[in-house]
């Protein structure tokens, strides 16, 4: 059982709980038949204050967004001031609850000593419900104009700067205003509702196979397996909501009087596969395996449902060879491995080849009700079939010094052929999104290395170390003839980021200054640039006749590159800063400045134990990852209306008094991404590489002798720290280096509108514990 408190203090209901229970029995009826069965139950429950149904602007966003000057708490009348805090405090709970049940039964039949049959049937049922208890908020409303305070005679009241009432003529007297303590959520508006979603998903899995072992001349071991697996699943969900709660303390469907809305759906799928496998080992030195599968999926059109998938692997245990005898004192085990094979992927929607139409409710009203409308049929490619994953893996395992030191290395190449991707090359005149089909190839090459070591010294001190490192890159091919940098052109590396190279910030001496020492705004001419010259564009006059102007990036009406603004590198030397044709072959001054895929992921664990004390530390890190941030925590000057701003920006932006600043001169980009100074560029790309101490634990186990006396089997005390230390290169920005912008459990792609760093922060937790077994 796990019971975990969340990050949100106000409202006191941000929690996660998990219960697990399992039972498993096995019975050998006779020497031929063994029967087994089991059941498992698990419940996961997430509770949080239900402030809004929005996942694109939830309370976390506002907590980061609002300035630290903004008052939180109660005003002098004891009323809460409208804020994310007050809303969390006043909110009712939302509860997500998942019940998972798994039942399984199986049998093994030993027909002969070397021939057996295994059968297992699995049934899982997952119930999910999500209840959202809404409310209406009342607070001192800082979003509406303050109300002037009058006394009983209707005369204006004056206060001093402390808020004390003073006479009109007194020193420092100002008119008194109050925030009005209003219910500010409209009746029936979000979140004045109760909402419930229920979902039930069940799945049957059958695995049955037979195994036959054959040993010839004691040196040749064969194993034959043939089998079948079957998966069939189905799910149903419905949701309903009713607005206008009668009692905001007890949200109930029966006690709501407003609009009812409902929805629901159903889905099902199935896969069936037959497989055969042959294993051969010669003296446990030479190992071979061959597989052949024949798989069918409900996802594809009838003629394309079934496919063959072969695979092969081989291994050589070199340390078993007699000619390796000499190495025995050091080398305990050495094995070379290689495998190659195909498997299929069918995890796509089941209607990719069916031109179907969705029904949606419209906001057009006729005859007293909202109309439903049937939308255009989906555009389709008819011959959709399996995606093929071809894997080639070469590896070596070695262990030394009586297995104390181990080393594993793998190099692999995974080629995904017939990728599920939209048909390439459609344009807007088609009138719909390009349909998915099987096109193109994604090739991933990578390696994994792991090392482990453990040793116990004579004095009882035990130490163990584990370290791993892996890395992979993926490249597109055979998909499109397009060379546009934003397409999946041939040779594109997955996750690459195209941008400009930042040269530096402009300084005063870059400009021709006027008598007052200020740069001068002049009309652009064709000599200076080919952009924005005919429309009367302007720029600050630069020194030198061959100076490079950047009018292409003067995206706001009153923005001109001046002292403190970003100077980009004219990489292709054509005297303009632009993206050329926007193609790989002529990207203008753009280049690949980074990649958003995590590279060089590594981890290491150090452990030691001595006389009942145990210690472990687990570090995790990513060696290379960049993202171009979004929103006010990542982009200086993103939008002044956002209020809060990271100290890193505030403390180090360009002003005439701080000319060697890291960030450019202040400008309000009005909430628009990638404009003016903030073009995607090398200098302000976020370096998301990090090293984090994920866990460090110190424990003490009380010795057996002591425990036996008090009839306790095992007693351990421990203290653990989670995520306590992180080393990153984010220049002090309040962004977690592990985060992916826009990803959360509430909204997988556009959480809080995709802004960087505005979700639930990573937990830092310290815990003390006792483990007790009787």
């Amino acid at each position: 059982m796990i019971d975990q408190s969340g990050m949100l203090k106000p409202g006191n209901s941000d929690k996660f709980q998990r219960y697990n229970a399992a039972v498993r029995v096995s019975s050998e009826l006779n020497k031929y038949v063994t029967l087994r069965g089991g059941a498992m139950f698990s419940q996961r429950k997430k509770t949080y204050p239900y402030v809004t149904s929005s996942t694109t602007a939830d309370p976390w966003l506002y907590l980061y967004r609002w300035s630290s000057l903004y008052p939180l708490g109660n005003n002098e009348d004891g009323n809460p001031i409208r804020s994310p805090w007050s809303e969390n405090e006043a909110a009712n709970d939302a509860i997500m609850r998942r019940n998972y049940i798994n039942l399984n039964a199986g049998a093994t039949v030993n027909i002969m000593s070397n021939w057996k049959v295994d059968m297992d049937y699995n049934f899982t049922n997952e119930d999910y419900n999500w209840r959202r208890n809404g409310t209406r908020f009342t607070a001192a409303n800082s979003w509406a104009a303050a109300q002037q305070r009058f006394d009983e005679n209707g005369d204006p009241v004056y206060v001093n700067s402390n808020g004390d009432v003073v006479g009109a003529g007194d020193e420092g007297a100002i008119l008194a205003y109050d925030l009005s303590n209003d219910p500010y959520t409209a009746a029936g508006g979000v979140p004045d509702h109760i909402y419930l979603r229920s979902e039930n998903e069940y799945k049957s899995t059958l695995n049955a196979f037979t195994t036959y072992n054959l040993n010839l001349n004691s040196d040749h071991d064969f194993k034959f397996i043939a089998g079948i697996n079957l998966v069939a699943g189905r799910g149903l969900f419905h949701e309903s909501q009713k607005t206008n709660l009668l009692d905001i303390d007890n949200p109930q469907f029966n006690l709501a009087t407003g609009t009812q809305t409902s929805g629901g759906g159903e889905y099902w799928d199935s896969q069936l596969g037959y497989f055969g496998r042959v294993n051969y080992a010669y003296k446990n030195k030479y190992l071979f395996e061959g597989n052949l599968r024949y798989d069918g999926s409900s996802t594809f059109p009838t003629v394309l449902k079934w496919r063959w998938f072969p695979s092969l692997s081989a291994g050589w245990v070199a340390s078993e060879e007699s000619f390796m005898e000499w190495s025995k004192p050091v080398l305990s085990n050495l094995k070379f491995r290689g495998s190659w094979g195909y498997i299929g992927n069918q995890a796509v929607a089941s209607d990719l080849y069916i031109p179907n139409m969705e029904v949606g409710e419209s906001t057009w009203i006729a005859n007293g009700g909202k109309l439903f409308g049937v939308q255009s049929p989906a555009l389709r490619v008819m011959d959709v079939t399996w995606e093929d994953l071809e894997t080639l893996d070469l590896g070596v395992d070695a262990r030394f010094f009586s297995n104390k030191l181990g080393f594993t290395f793998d190099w692999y190449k995974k080629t995904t052929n017939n990728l599920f991707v939209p048909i390439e090359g459609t344009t807007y005149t088609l009138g719909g999104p390009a349909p998915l089909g099987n096109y193109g190839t994604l090739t991933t090459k990578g390696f994994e290395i792991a090392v482990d070591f453990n040793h116990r010294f004579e004095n009882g001190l035990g130490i163990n170390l584990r370290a791993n490192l892996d890395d992979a890159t993926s490249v597109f091919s055979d998909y499109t003839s397009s060379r546009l940098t934003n397409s999946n052109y041939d040779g594109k590396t997955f996750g690459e980021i195209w941008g400009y190279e930042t040269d530096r910030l402009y300084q005063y001496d870059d400009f021709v200054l006027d008598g007052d020492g200020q740069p001068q705004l002049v009309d652009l001419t064709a000599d200076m640039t080919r952009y924005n010259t005919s429309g009367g564009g302007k720029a600050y006059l630069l020194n030198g006749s061959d100076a490079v102007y950047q009018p292409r990036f003067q995206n706001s009406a009153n923005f001109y590159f001046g002292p403190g603004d970003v100077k980009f590198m004219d990489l292709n030397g054509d005297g303009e800063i632009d993206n050329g044709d926007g193609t790989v072959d002529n990207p203008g001054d753009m280049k690949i400045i980074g990649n958003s895929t995590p590279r060089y992921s590594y981890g290491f664990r150090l452990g030691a134990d001595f006389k009942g004390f145990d210690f472990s530390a687990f570090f995790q890190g990513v060696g290379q990852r960049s993202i171009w941030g979004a929103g006010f925590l990542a982009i200086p000057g993103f939008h002044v209306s956002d209020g809060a701003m990271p100290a890193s920006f505030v403390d180090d932006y360009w002003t005439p008094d701080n000319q060697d600043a890291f960030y450019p001169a202040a400008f309000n980009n009005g909430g628009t991404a990638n404009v003016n100074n903030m073009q995607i560029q090398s200098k302000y790309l976020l370096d998301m590489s990090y090293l984090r101490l994920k866990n460090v634990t110190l424990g003490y186990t009380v010795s057996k002798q002591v425990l036996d006396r008090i009839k306790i089997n095992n007693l351990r005390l421990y203290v653990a720290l989670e995520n306590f230390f992180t080393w990153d290169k984010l220049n002090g920005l309040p962004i977690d280096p592990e985060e992916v912008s826009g990803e959360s459990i509430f909204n997988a792609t556009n959480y809080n509108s995709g802004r960087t760093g505005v979700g639930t922060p990573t937990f830092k937790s310290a815990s003390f514990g006792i483990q007790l077994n009787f």
Partner: protein
Amino acid sequence: MKKLAYIFLGTSLLFSGCKDLLDRPELTKIVDSEDTYWRNENDLRLFANDFYTNYFVGYNSGFGTAYAPLTGYNFSDDLTSQGAQLNLLGSVPTGAGGTSMTNTALRTTSVLRAEHPGPNWNFYWVRKSNIMIDRLETFAKPKLSEEEFNHWSAVARFFRGYEYSRLVSTFGDVPYFDKPITADDFDQMYKGRDDRGMVMDKVYEDFQFVLENMREDDGVGYVNRYAAAALISNLMLFEGSWQHYHGLDQTKAQKYLELARDAAQYVMDSGKWSFTADFKSLFVSDNLAGNPEVIFYRTYDDALAVRHAVASYSNGTEGQARSANLDLLKDFVCVDGQVWQNSAVTDANSFRLQDLATTRDPRFEATFMDTINTPATGTLVYAHKFAGREALDYIGKTYPPKWGSNTNISDAPIVRLAEVVLNWVEAKQILAENYGGPAVTQEDLGKSINAIRNRPLDDVAVAKGVTKTAPLQLSALPNDPNRDADVSALMWEIRRERRMEFVFEYARINDIRRWKKLTNLNYNNNDFKLGSWIIGTVDLGDKNNPGKILASFVNVLQVMKTDGTIVTYNGSNDAEMVGFYVVRNFTNRLAVNNRNYLAPVSISLIQEYQDRGFTLNQTPGWEQ
């Protein structure tokens, strides 16, 4: 043991005949095929329902602004903002057009730009109407009566014509498709632009079919021949006058203008609508069902949670970034039917809002507040057209949902008789002046401009002293000293009538585009930089400090005297602060170019065509 082996064998045999097991089609969507859909009138109606909110936007919904009056249509030479005036597009956009290729984005109702308020380079709706026409022909025809077939064909062709009219008004030449394209038919997809006239001839054919075949009544809330005819008169007037004033094909100009005139005439002759409701009631009524002037409207309903925010932005508190400039105020006729310079009405030359409310056409009082209101940050002239009179009582208080936030429920007129008669009289006049059409008579004015001027007045307006404007007389047309030399006196009055009628609606920006008067946006006279006549201590006075202007206006407030001198408030010259309000920090926009009449396509779109061996021509004037 043998038994178990048999069981095992049995199970595997069972699953080897698994055709059914793997047959699990999508359950929650309808398949587009002859057997599963397009079976009856109801299927067609459901398919057509999807068009409605994209074409009959009304006040949009929620906080949506596209194609909505005031919140969406707030850019024209009527209006001036504080600071820098919004520039017209200055360079060709790089991106493919701003919409990603997802279904939702394609279906979104959005406006490309303020100066050409039409759709983006987006053919979702063209495909939709082409599919409907195609399926009617291939699947539904045998299952429908002739009348049903004709009606639903007319509905599909109406929306296709509407969409192409919008696309043409934004981009000029566009590729014309009359059939749905398949995802791998690249030759069709990448075909070049068709000539604007060719496209609009196709639209013309569609519209003619609509006017002959659409039902005259298909139930409340569903498009019918009258609503279609009224909207067709708008679209055809746009195209006919564009062809005419932009010097394109004069034969086509005549043809389209005649259709504009005839479609309007059809609505007028029906006698179903009249000018017997007051102007304000058109925009602020909870229910437009009985309104005698409204031909087609969009219903909003609190219980159904279909609400809008247009009224809120007219409630006296919400900001209006662009607001009416003196050029617009001066264009309103006085109640004696004369321009202010020649009017005999007392105080006709006063530009105090309080005076304008009674000396000018009653639409002035119904459109604007009669006091200065600072949330109209441009000129302080606040448009109150879309909120009920009682909404102003809530300034400084919490608004009821009806007039606040995105919870407004006033119904929106989609098309009303005033548009029809003004289209009609303008089409007639262009035809008369240029194409040998019969001259506009006094009787024609009686059916159009003078019928509008004879609208009843509501009680509050009457109590304020608002009176109806005298009829326009052919024999005594106003002599406006500001009339453009290339516009006849009668045409000038027809245009003025539109300007007064449609403040903050869809018409003005498109009118100056089709008249080839986009250069009005150059704001090269002072009237564009000024608001109404203010008396600082009265209009912006400090309540707690009588005789003083609010301290926040020190060094901010400026007025212009009649002789053109500008006075800035310095904290002590309160008495001098009387004059035309000067827009704060006014800076003019970049000069309008000829190319700004039409939108360019993006660089990457042209590149995309090139990449695949096709050619998409750039809109004239935007080539690089």
